[in-house]
């Protein structure tokens, strides 16, 4: 299955929002290929009739009552913001959907 190309790595990088540089693309392509090649063994069990486990706990229905808890103050909420204006997080222009 493996054989990860530079283009695929570039596509993954876009999905993951990583501005990978030229040589990094090649480097990762090689390494991801090695790792995927090694871990692809898990597909040995693909046809086995075994339920998947997404979580080690057998818990269900953990819920909280609909009761208000104190929020942070706006100052606390914004305390780590790289930029702010009018008590809001200031971010660069957003492209895309309205």
């Amino acid at each position, binding site marked *: 299955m493996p054989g990860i190309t530079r283009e695929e790595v570039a596509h993954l990088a876009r999905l993951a929002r990583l501005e990978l540089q030229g040589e990094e693309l090649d480097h990762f392509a090689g390494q991801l290929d090695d790792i995927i090649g090694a871990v692809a063994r898990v597909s040995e069990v693909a046809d086995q009739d075994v339920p998947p486990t997404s979580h080690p706990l057998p818990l269900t229905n953990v819920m909280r009552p609909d*009761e208000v808890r104190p929020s942070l103050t706006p100052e606390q*909420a914004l305390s780590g913001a790289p930029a702010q204006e009018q008590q809001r997080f200031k971010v660069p222009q957003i492209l895309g959907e309205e």
Partner: protein
Amino acid sequence: MTVTDLVSYEDALDTYDPVMGLEVHVELGTKTKMFCGCSTTLGAEPNSQTCPTCLGMPGSLPVVNAIGVESAIKIGLALNCTIAEWCRFARKNYFYPDMPKNFQTSQYDEPIAFDGYLDVQLEDGEVFRVHIERAHMEEDTGKSTHVGGATGRIQGARHSLLDYNRAGIPLIEIVTKPIEGAGERAPEVAKAYVAELRELIKALDVSEARMEQGQMRCDVNLSLRPKGTEKFGTRSETKNVNSLRSVERAARFEIQRHAAVLSSGGTIIQETRHFHEEDGSTTSGRIKEEAEDYRYFPEPDLVPVAPSREWVEELRAVLPELPRVRRNRLREEWGISEHDMQSILNAGAVDLITATVEAGADSAAARKWWMGELARRANEDGVELAALPITPEQVARVTALVADGSLNDKLARQTIEGVLAGEGDPDTVVEKRGLKVVSDEGALGTAVDEAIAANAAIADKIRGGKVAAAGALVGAVMKATRGQADAARVRELILERLGAKE
């Protein structure tokens, strides 16, 4: 494409069958957000209702709001859905600055409710069944304000400001199965479906579902296929259509636009579109260079939701009567036409009239006041009927005073005016303004006698059997008593004195 390039609606429907899919997001009216204890009250200062969890801070974790789940089950049941015995939340991964974690906690292949339907009634009474694919739980995003561009739009903005008070407010997304076979009535069905869904949500008391406030938002997916063919065409997704009228217009516009493109040999591209209130058109959103890949997987910070059958049955047992059923029942009880019922519905008066009847009023009287005098006042003041400062109990009291003859219509109107002006309840207003009908028989008798004396010619006609002429004498008496007499009683006295019979 402008409105003038479109194929006419009739021509479009001659050639194509529309297939629609409607996705409605409803913001629940819970006190707190879906996964944290922050308040959901509208209108708070920016970022004052946020915490590590709804800001997506490192280390924070979600905990599910029980009322959010309960509301989802109620909606599912009301939509005749199966309620999952076991389901999970999933992460929908995509980057967007208004979404603090850069994934939305939603549900994917395991929704809490699925496979249902909603019967919607069109204005002429025809019932159309809309099949429901699923209803699932998720969370809302923050709100961005775009600064530096024209009119706060995203295009041309230099930067944006983010307020995360809305981030994490519970949403229920309700998705229909493809709606086929509605033909030319498709836009009407879309509107009726959203209207019916809104009534349902309100009846369940899980949200106020105010579209103008974004508490209910609709995406209209539409495609055309040549008549007689099976395969669906490529669809467009018109996002955030936020009024009932717009839903209908958007569907209509897209039918005409698709038809124009297809008829001229073009192809429809799958894309999101924006609806414009001003002219009812839609325009293309940004076309993505590559298909979205949301990389859904089960949310590992939450455990599965497995609603017990007892809980589901408890909720089913206390479901309110469905709006359509209730409307039809009331229409029959009140003995009115489909059209009158629709007007009452459009005026938002169903609950008010019902409550007035429950408070003892006759249904005709309750309708008369709410749809007449009060509707006029609401319209003048530019407020919703329910927002008028008068209660159904007070309206019922006015109708009672009219029924027992204490007030006539004119006095009743003045009484209502007093209540609306904040002068107190109906009895207080009557007392303070001195609005009681003159019921002193002696005084009334004198007024009648005077009127007969002053209008001898008319009195003679009545004596001669022309009972219809009594109206003029009644008017004279009413004038003399400045309206404070019971007109029916006045008429009785006049006929009695002149020896005439009805």
